[in-house]
């Protein structure tokens, strides 16, 4: 495995689905980062309620008091809030939960997995045991337990998902380091008396980056799914903060009515973003020539 370089970028871009997925992710990243100026309803949480124009169909045009006409491209919900704006505001939650938990999981996973793989012996035995213990409590339930312990809300979900997803990262890093440790160049570095952290950081980690990147893409997608699920259960982002999961929850009961789109669109959004990450993961695997199960 070599470091990613320009050639790998070309290989990635030649994967059509991966490019498509990356574009879709970037689009939503932009929407989330620019925030309110892009939204038809620029109020902080896209929470501008007008009960008199609730449940408008997608594409309806309405006029405000000053006579200016506005498009409700995706219609409005029960409280007359613009659905497109809510979706755009909600994207920030999905993406930041994904990014945050990937970051936390990388920090913990690199540290513990690296130590276990490099030091071996009883350190490895204990860390491996801890990995198996964490592994045996399903992520969703672990996150539920953590949010119960530290209260409902956006930040708790953030932490909880990160604190459960590092296991996968640690496993990969440990496995990679176990085999890299036997490499002649690592042994040469050891013989030269380089400090352990330097060997791990400068000489081993760059060679383990391929599978790590693939796992991060998968973790990002998994975090989005879990966040959406938690919001759906009412544990995640709290009303009126919009998140794709709680928008589905709010409108799930409308499925049998003419307003089914209110639940269908946010659900499809979640699926599309997760799918985009799956494609990007495929593209990375293809470009970095990593096997799916190292």
């Amino acid at each position, binding site marked *: 495995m070599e470091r990613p370089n320009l050639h790998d970028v070309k290989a990635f871009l030649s994967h059509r689905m991966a490019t498509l997925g990356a574009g879709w992710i970037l689009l939503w990243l932009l929407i989330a980062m620019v925030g309110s100026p892009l939204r038809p309803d620029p109020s902080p949480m896209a929470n501008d309620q007008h009960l008199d124009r609730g449940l408008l169909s997608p594409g309806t045009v309405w006029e405000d008091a000053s006579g200016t006409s506005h498009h409700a491209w995706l219609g409005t919900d029960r409280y007359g809030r613009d659905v497109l704006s809510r979706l755009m505001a909600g994207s920030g939650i999905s993406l930041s939960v994904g990014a945050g938990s990937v970051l936390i999981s990388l920090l913990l996973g690199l540290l513990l997995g690296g130590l276990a793989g490099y030091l071996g012996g009883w350190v490895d035995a204990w860390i491996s*045991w*801890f990995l*198996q*213990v*964490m592994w*045996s*409590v*399903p*992520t*969703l*339930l*672990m996150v*539920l*337990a*953590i949010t*119960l*312990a*530290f209260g409902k809300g956006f930040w708790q979900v953030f932490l909880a998902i990160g604190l459960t997803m590092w296991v996968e990262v640690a496993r990969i890093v440990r496995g990679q380091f176990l085999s890299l440790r036997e490499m002649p160049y690592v042994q040469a570095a050891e013989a030269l008396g380089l400090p352990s952290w330097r060997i791990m950081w400068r000489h081993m980690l760059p060679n383990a980056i391929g599978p790590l990147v693939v796992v991060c893409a998968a973790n990002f*997608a998994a975090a989005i*799914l879990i966040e*959406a*699920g938690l919001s*759906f*259960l*009412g*544990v995640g982002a709290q009303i009126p903060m919009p998140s794709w*999961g709680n928008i*589905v929850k709010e409108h*799930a009961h409308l*499925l*049998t009515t003419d307003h*089914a789109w209110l*639940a*269908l669109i946010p*659900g499809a959004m*979640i*699926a*599309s973003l*997760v*799918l985009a990450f*799956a*494609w990007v993961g495929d593209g990375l695997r293809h470009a970095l020539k990593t096997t*799916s*199960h190292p």
Partner: protein
Amino acid sequence: MQRLLRQLAQGLGVLWGSLTLVFLIFAQVPDPARAIAGQNERTEAIEAFRQLHGLNLSLGERYVRFLGELSPLGPTQEGGWGLRAPSLGKSYFGGRPVVDALVEALPATMLLACAAMLLALVLGIALGLMLAWQGDGPWARAVIGVSTLGMSAPSFFVAILVAWGLGVVWHDWTGLPASGGWRVLDPFEGPQFAWKHLILPAFTLGIRPLSVVIQLTRNAAADVLEESYIRTARAKGLSGWRLMRKHVLRNAMNPVLTAASGWFASMLAGAVFVEYVFGWNGMGLLMFRALESGDLPVVMGGVLVVSTTFVAVNLLVDVLYGWLDPRVRSR
């Protein structure tokens, strides 16, 4: 035999760790006594509530009590020592033993999870083998595409879609109900097993593992088909179904089996959504309701049951591994 004992010891070590972890997380939950018993504001009532659930004890004492109650060996009700049913404490509301509630709900969830798993394995392996046999083509690409989509959609959303599409919109055509538990009380014939209620939730829960099984089987079988012993078998005149069954299937099963053991537990967790949407009276629904009302012992009991199942299934698969692949035994 020695291998088996070592695996058992390892499994117990992991089990102990996960029980402790779950205990420690739930021990962080702020004291709920005032919120739950507090409507009548009487100090004695709150104290009694704390006493009953051991909330007045220190963390160490609570841990000892937790492990003591959980252990299947200990003082029995008749006095003396022996085997007994583990206890998981009492529900905050009404004081019903948590074990009773879980035991009542467990069969429904197990039935659902097993049906979903069976569907995923049988259909997934068959489809995966077929795709590997046919090689790359429009069919392969279509199935892979659909199964990637199946992995990407959130399970609650799939549940809603299936309940709505197959249970309501096309109800006349499928004849399947959008909700209901596995036991129905027939006014004339007493409790009946309602298999019709099982189909949609099991299908929903099975979609994600089905997608993974298809892809794993296809990849593993495609790798096996490249092996030289397959060429030999073909040269000897073996073809089609017999070749796939005798030579490919057995050698391609290991990765599928490993992955399948991992999902069984996450399926029990995923059942929370499916049971909630379909109104299936299992552990997921029980945990969801307990979560909403803040009935901690029930949530904790549910988490413990799931992680114990996970450890047990993993152990079983480890043992099965040795049986399927003799090379592992000698290691």
